[in-house]
C-alpha cells in the first residue's frame, strides 16, 4: 500500500519534470510567446528546492524555521559576488568605490573563481547553520522558541548586510549581473537560458531524489520519530540533537543552492530575500502544498509563485495579496495536509470504504 502512495508522488514529480523539460521546446515552436516566462519558471525551480529543504526540517522533523531566507540569501550573495566580479573583470565595484574602498575586500577575493564560489555557496550556509544548530539543539531549544531564534538571527544578519554597505551595497544589494552562462535575456541569448534552465532542472531532480531517498530510509523514520515523540526518541538511545543539527544543515545547504540558482535567473540579489517576511513566504509554500510529503513542497512552490505572478497584475493588482492570504487561511483551517493532503484523504477514504464493504460482505456470508 505504502509503495503505491510513494509512487503516486514520484509519478506526479515525473509529470512536473516532463512539463518543465518541454517548456523551452514549447517556446521554440511558438506555444509560449515570451522567454521571460521561462525565466520566471526558472526562479520557481529554485523556490522548489528551498521548499524541499524546508519540508525536510518542518514537515518531517517538526522544526519550524522562520529564517530560511538567511541561507537562501547567503547562497545568493555568494553567487552574485562571483557574477559581479565577472562583469567588473575582478576590479572593485562602484559601491565599494563610493564606500571608500580602494581595493577588493578580502571577503570578496575567494569569489573570483567559479569552483571556489560553488563551494562557498554550499559551505557558508552549511557552516552557519551547523554552528547555530549545534548550540540550539544541544540545549534542547525547540518549538516556538526555535522559530523565534531563527527569526531574530535572520533579522540580525539582515541588519549587518544593510550596515556594511561598502561590502554588500546595503539595501540595494548586488545588481546588474548576468548568469554563469552569460546573458539570458532576449531572443539572441536563448541558448544560454536553455543551458541554465536544464542545469537547474537537473539540480531540482537530484535534490528531489536525494530528499526522497533520505526520508525513505531509516534516517527518515528517525526524523518522523523526532517529530512525533522527541523524548521517546531520546530514551530509545538516539542522539536527537545530532540528527536535528544534520537536517538543519542539510536544509540550509539546499536553501543556499536554491539562492545561487535564483540569482542566475533574477540578475540581482537584495537583502529583501533575507527578510523575515520572505522566509515566512517560503514556509507558506510548503504549508499550502502539503508538508511531510516532499512533492507537496514542490507543488506549493510552483503553484503559489505562478499564482502570484499572474494575479498581481491587471484586475487583481491591488487585491492579489488578499487572494493569496485567503488561500493560506483556508488551507490552515480546513486542509491540514495542504493540496497533497486532499488526494491523500481521498485514497484513504476509498480504502476505508473498501474495508467496510469487505467486512459487510464477510458478515453476510
Amino acid at each position, binding site marked *: 500500500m505504502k509503495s503505491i502512495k510513494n509512487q503516486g508522488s514520484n509519478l506526479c514529480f515525473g509529470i512536473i519534470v516532463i512539463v518543465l523539460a518541454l517548456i523551452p521546446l514549447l517556446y521554440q515552436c511558438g506555444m509560449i510567446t515570451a522567454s521571460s516566462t521561462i525565466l*520566471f519558471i526558472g526562479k520557481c525551480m529554485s523556490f522548489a528546492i528551498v521548499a524541499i529543504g524546508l519540508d525536510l526540517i518542518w514537515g518531517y522533523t517538526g522544526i519550524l524555521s522562520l529564517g530560511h531566507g538567511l541561507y537562501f540569501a547567503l547562497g545568493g550573495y555568494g553567487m552574485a559576488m562571483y557574477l559581479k566580479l565577472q562583469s567588473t573583470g575582478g576590479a572593485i565595484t562602484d559601491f565599494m*568605490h563610493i564606500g571608500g574602498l580602494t581595493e577588493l575586500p578580502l571577503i570578496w577575493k575567494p569569489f573570483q573563481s567559479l569552483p571556489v564560489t560553488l563551494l562557498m555557496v554550499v559551505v557558508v550556509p552549511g557552516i552557519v547553520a551547523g554552528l547555530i544548530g549545534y548550540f540550539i539543539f544541544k540545549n534542547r531549544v525547540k518549538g516556538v522558541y526555535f522559530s523565534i531564534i531563527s527569526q531574530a538571527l535572520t533579522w540580525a544578519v539582515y541588519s549587518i548586510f544593510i550596515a556594511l554597505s561598502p561590502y554588500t551595497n546595503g539595501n540595494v544589494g548586488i545588481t546588474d549581473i548576468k548568469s554563469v552562462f552569460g546573458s539570458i*535575456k532576449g531572443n539572441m541569448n536563448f541558448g544560454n537560458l536553455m543551458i541554465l534552465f536544464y542545469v537547474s532542472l537537473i539540480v531540482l531532480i537530484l535534490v528531489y531524489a536525494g530528499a526522497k531517498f533520505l526520508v525513505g530510509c531509516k534516517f527518515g523514520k528517525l526524523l518522523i520519530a523526532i517529530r512525533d515523540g522527541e523524548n521517546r526518541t531520546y530514551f530509545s538511545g538516539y542522539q536527537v540533537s545530532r540528527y536535528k543539527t544534520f537536517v538543519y544543515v542539510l536544509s540550509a545547504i539546499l536553501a543556499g543552492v536554491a539562492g545561487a540558482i535564483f540569482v542566475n535567473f533574477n540578475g*540581482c540579489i537584495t537583502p*529583501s530575500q533575507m527578510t523575515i517576511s520572505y522566509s515566512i513566504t517560503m514556509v507558506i509554500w510548503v504549508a499550502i502544498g502539503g508538508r511531510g510529503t516532499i512533492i507537496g513542497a514542490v507543488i506549493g512552490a*510552483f503553484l503559489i509563485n505562478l499564482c502570484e505572478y499572474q494575479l498581481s*497584475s491587471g484586475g487583481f493588482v*491591488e487585491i*492579489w495579496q488578499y487572494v493569496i492570504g485567503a488561500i493560506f487561511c483556508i488551507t490552515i483551517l480546513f486542509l491540514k495536509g495542504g493540496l497533497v493532503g486532499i488526494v491523500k484523504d481521498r485514497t484513504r477514504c476509498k480504502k476505508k470504504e473498501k474495508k467496510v464493504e469487505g467486512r459487510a460482505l464477510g458478515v453476510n456470508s
Partner: protein
Amino acid sequence: MRNMKFKKVITLAMAAILALGSTACGNKGASDGDTVKVGLLHSLTGSMAISEEAVRDAEVLAIEEINESGGVLGKQIEYVEEDGASEPSTFATKAEKLIDSEGVATVFGCWTSSSRKAVKSIFEDYNNLLWYPVQYEGMESSENIVYTGAAPNQQIVPAVEYLKDQGYKKVFLLGSDYVFPRTANMIIEAQAKELGLEIVGEEYADMDQTDFAAIIAKIEKADPDIIVNTLNGTGNVSFFKQMSEKNYTSEDYMTMSFSIAEEEVKTIGSDILKGHMVSWNYYQTTDTKVNEKFVKAYKEKYGEDRVTSDPVEAAYDAVYLWKAAVEKAGSFEVDDVKEAIKSGEISFEAPEGTVTINGDNQHVSKTVRIGVVKEDGLIYETYSTEKPVDPDPYLKTYDWAVKANLQPIE
C-alpha cells in the same frame, strides 16, 4: 458527510483559483490596431504602496487626459499595471514580464533606488524605456531610463547653498540608513567643505526605527543651527513627533528636508512641521496656470482631500514627455524614441514650469524651489531659481565635487 461536501467545495474553489491564477496569459504586441500598450510598475502592496499609489494615480490621470485629447500618434494608450510589492526582486520579475510578455512600448515606474537599480539592467538588456519619477541620489545615467525627478544638483546642492546664504553655519546630518541619504550626505560634506560650513554630527537611523531618543540627545549635544534631514518614510513621523514631545519647534531646531512633501506633511501633522524648510521642484501651491488645472483635475478625479506633490507631478510630466518624444520620433519603437530624446529638444509645459529632457544624461531640467511648511499643511515657496537648472547627475560641473572624487568608477 456534510463536512466532506464542504471540503469538496473548498477544494474545488481553491483549485479553480490556482488554476486560473497560474494559467492566465498576456497577449503580446506593443501597438496593434488603435491602441498602444504601456506598463505601470509600482508597489501597490507593501510598505511603499502608500507613496507609489499617488504616483500611479498621476500617471493614470495623464494617460486619460491624453486619450481624451486624441491619444498619441492617433492611438489610444492602454496601460497594463503590475505590482512590485515593495520588493526589488519582484520589480525585476515584473519588469521582464511587462517588457517581454506584454510587449509594452514603455514603462512608467519605480520609486525606491533599490527597485530602480534592480530593473536597470533589464531595461538595458531588453532595450526598453523606463520613466523614473522620483528625486534620487544621482551618480547614474542610462540610455534606457529617463529620470524626471531631481538629480542632486537640482535639489540638494542648491538647498545647501541657500542655507549658507541664510547664515546657517553648524550643520547636523540625519538620514535613514540606505543609499540615498548616504550618497546625499557624502555630497553635502564635500560641498560644506567648499562653503565653509561645519558638520557637527552625522547620524543614520534604521529604515523602520521608531525610537529617536538617542539621536535627539546627540542633536542636543551637538547644538546645530540646522538639521539636514534625509530620513524617509516612517522615520520622519517618529522623529518629528518625538521632537515635538520635547517641545522643540522649528525655532529651536530648524530642519531642511529632502523627502517631506505634501503627502508626508499630512501624515506627520502640519502643527508639528510648520516653519520647517523643504527643497523640491514643485509644490501644490506653485503658481502657474498649468498647475491650477493639474491640481483641479487631480482632486476632481481622486478626491478633495488628496494633495499633489513633487513626485506626483514628475510622474504626470513623464507621460507627457513620453508623448512628446514619440511624436517627435513619429514612432513607438524604443530606438526611435531614444534617438528623439537624444536631440535634447523634448520638452513639456509642466505644472512646475517648462521641463526639458537633457539629451546627454536623460535627466530633466527643473526649477529648484525652497519652501516652508505652513499651518494649512501646504508648502509655500520662499526661494526659487530664475531658470530651470540643467541636470548634472555626476556633479561634473562642480569643482568641489570633482576634487572630492565623487564620481563612480567606470
